[in-house]
């Protein structure tokens, strides 16, 4: 049926948000002072839109499992997020005792079965995949790593094998939107609580907290670092892009559909920010990622701290480049 000017169905996947585009939040100022004003205003909008749970419940952390390996210790911690909702996370730390407090990295996983692949497991068996065991490998290099399950994943999941598909996550997001929030908002709020947890556990130096994220986990890591200044260094894989919306995210939150990754990354400035770009990334076209880099670098240049923002392009698909990420956190901790 070809009839000009008529629509016969709603294209649900490509919903455009009127009046909201990535550009509307873009920083266009010319100096540090203008940046500070923009940051304050945008952060205020972000915090208002995030619709976090109103009351924080006590974390009540419990270490329920502990295993000692050759050069690191791995523990499982459970803690509370809301009244009636708990979370589970891995904590890995080096075995060797030091007098100085250790730097920490909060690791936000991407699609898959949640936190387990970051320590090299899936359903209790050895599993090597695109997170490249970052949780364990950083611990071996002297970091405390905290790897929580995001909502809908791993042990915090009602889906088969704790491995949600996009449709599962959309259902979960719809559930939270009916409650006035969204899946991404809550993931960000949970990430902020994970940093509270790190500080409460006291294993690491609160002044040396880093955050990494891959794919949809990068969106969570970026947004929480954007609003939480306690994050001192950031590594994002498969995130930055000239497109609007948060890549890899099932969330239908209209606000996030209108915010660009450049805007979110701008809020992280002038803190150290590594942007990893795999050339064959199926989520974010590397061409669009490459084009976005100058926008971020411009902001770091305003602060005369160009060295704090780096992009790293490598021959990869959707995957973390481990070495450049480790080097980044070592350099800035």
């Amino acid at each position, binding site marked *: 049926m070809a009839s000009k000017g008529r629509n016969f169905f709603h294209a649900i996947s490509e919903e455009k948000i009127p009046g909201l585009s990535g550009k509307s939040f873009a920083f266009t100022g010319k100096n540090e002072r203008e940046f500070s004003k923009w940051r304050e205003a945008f952060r205020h909008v972000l915090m208002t839109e995030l619709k976090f749970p109103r009351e924080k419940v006590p974390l009540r952390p419990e270490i329920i499992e502990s295993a000692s390996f050759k050069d690191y210790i791995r523990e499982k911690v459970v803690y509370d997020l809301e009244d009636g909702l708990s979370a589970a996370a891995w904590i890995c730390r080096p075995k060797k005792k030091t007098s100085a407090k250790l730097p920490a990295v909060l690791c936000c996983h991407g699609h898959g079965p949640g936190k387990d692949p970051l320590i090299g497991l899936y359903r209790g068996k*050895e*599993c*090597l995949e695109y997170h490249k065991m970052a949780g364990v490998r950083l611990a071996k290099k002297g970091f405390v790593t905290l790897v929580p399950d995001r909502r809908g994943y791993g042990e915090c999941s009602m889906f088969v094998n704790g491995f949600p598909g996009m449709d599962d996550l959309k259902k979960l997001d719809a559930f939270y939107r009916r409650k006035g929030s969204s899946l991404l908002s809550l993931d960000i709020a949970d990430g902020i609580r994970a940093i509270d947890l790190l500080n409460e556990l006291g294993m690491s130096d609160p002044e040396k907290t880093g955050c990494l994220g891959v794919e949809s986990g990068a969106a969570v890591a970026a947004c929480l670092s954007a609003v939480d200044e306690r994050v001192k260094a950031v590594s994002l894989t498969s995130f930055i892009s000239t497109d609007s919306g948060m890549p890899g995210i099932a969330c239908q939150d209209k606000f996030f559909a209108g915010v660009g990754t450049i805007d979110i990354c701008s809020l992280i400035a002038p803190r150290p920010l590594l942007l990893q770009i795999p050339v064959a990334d199926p989520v974010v076209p590397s061409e669009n990622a490459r084009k976005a880099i100058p926008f971020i670098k411009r902001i770091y240049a305003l602060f005369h701290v160009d060295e704090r923002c780096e992009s790293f392009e490598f021959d990869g698909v959707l995957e973390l480049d481990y070495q450049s990420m480790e080097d980044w956190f070592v350099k800035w901790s």
Partner: protein
Amino acid sequence: MEKNKNRVFTVSEWRDRMVEHCEPKLSFSGRTRDDYRNWRRRFKKEFRRLLGLFPDSVPLQSEIIERKVFPTYLREKVVFDSERFMSVPAWVCSPIKSSDTGKHPAVICCHGHGHGKDALGGILSNGKPGVDYQKRLAVELAENGYVAIAPDWRCFGERREPPEHLSHPRDLCDLAHITVESFGYNLLTLDIWDGMKTIDYLESRNDVDHSRIGCVGCSLGGTISMFLSAADQRISAACVSGYLMATGKCSFSGTCGSQTLPGLLALGDRAEVAGLICPRPLLIQIGEYDSTFPACHALKEYERLQHIYRTAGIDDRLGLDRFDGCHEIHLAPILEWFDRWLTERRTDD
């Protein structure tokens, strides 16, 4: 039904138990060159038997239906017939002709799962230029002096069924496997046949040196690259990426109807099939973080393959590229491999 340790109720568990107790008749365990020669003769015959029925040959009637010149390469779309009721579309990427060269080495680029040949030609599923896990291999090869051909396998790209024939969540390869089986064919064999016809087509081109034809692919493309190179001696150097691993170690859902050879496990496994490529050069790629083909399992099958090449006395022709990556083509070593084995005429085979 109460779970009883001695009883098996699911196909996946049945498979696991079968694999444990399977004693393949022609697993390679030789020690001497003579052992290798004897094994090769026997396994080759059995392999041919397992492939089963091939279609009747028909004239290719090839046509170039599209031609586009890019700054660094030329891209053509060709179509040829592989059997009475089947045609094969393919991209051919070739070097921009310079006056001094006539014939080029050629490489068959076998696509894996995804949207077919386009990925190898640097076209994404949305039609835009881009790179996926197959790293626009045909384009890269053309830019390095090869005629690279990337056909669509059955059920992929332009050979995909129209949406009204798809009944999700059923897998199209599985449906096609059942469909061709009714006529006595195996789907993988038919894809190998299309690969053989692709070589016929290459031989019909006057810009290709027939004695220097390579084959490469990742994932399903690795399957086809391996089986095609094993079945057709005209391929003189091969690369199998993200595939070599014992069949029994694959996850239950880690295969499809395009990738099985009925009866193979009674005789041997993938190392034996890859062993038929010997004495021709073969590069195996294993991504350290490939969760579909875990490196620990892949290496075990590689060691079995290495034993075949060693016993044949030519293990310098078997290469291993273990790289820091996932389920993907690792481009640079593939270009080096073909440069080493295809860019000068080799007469010592």
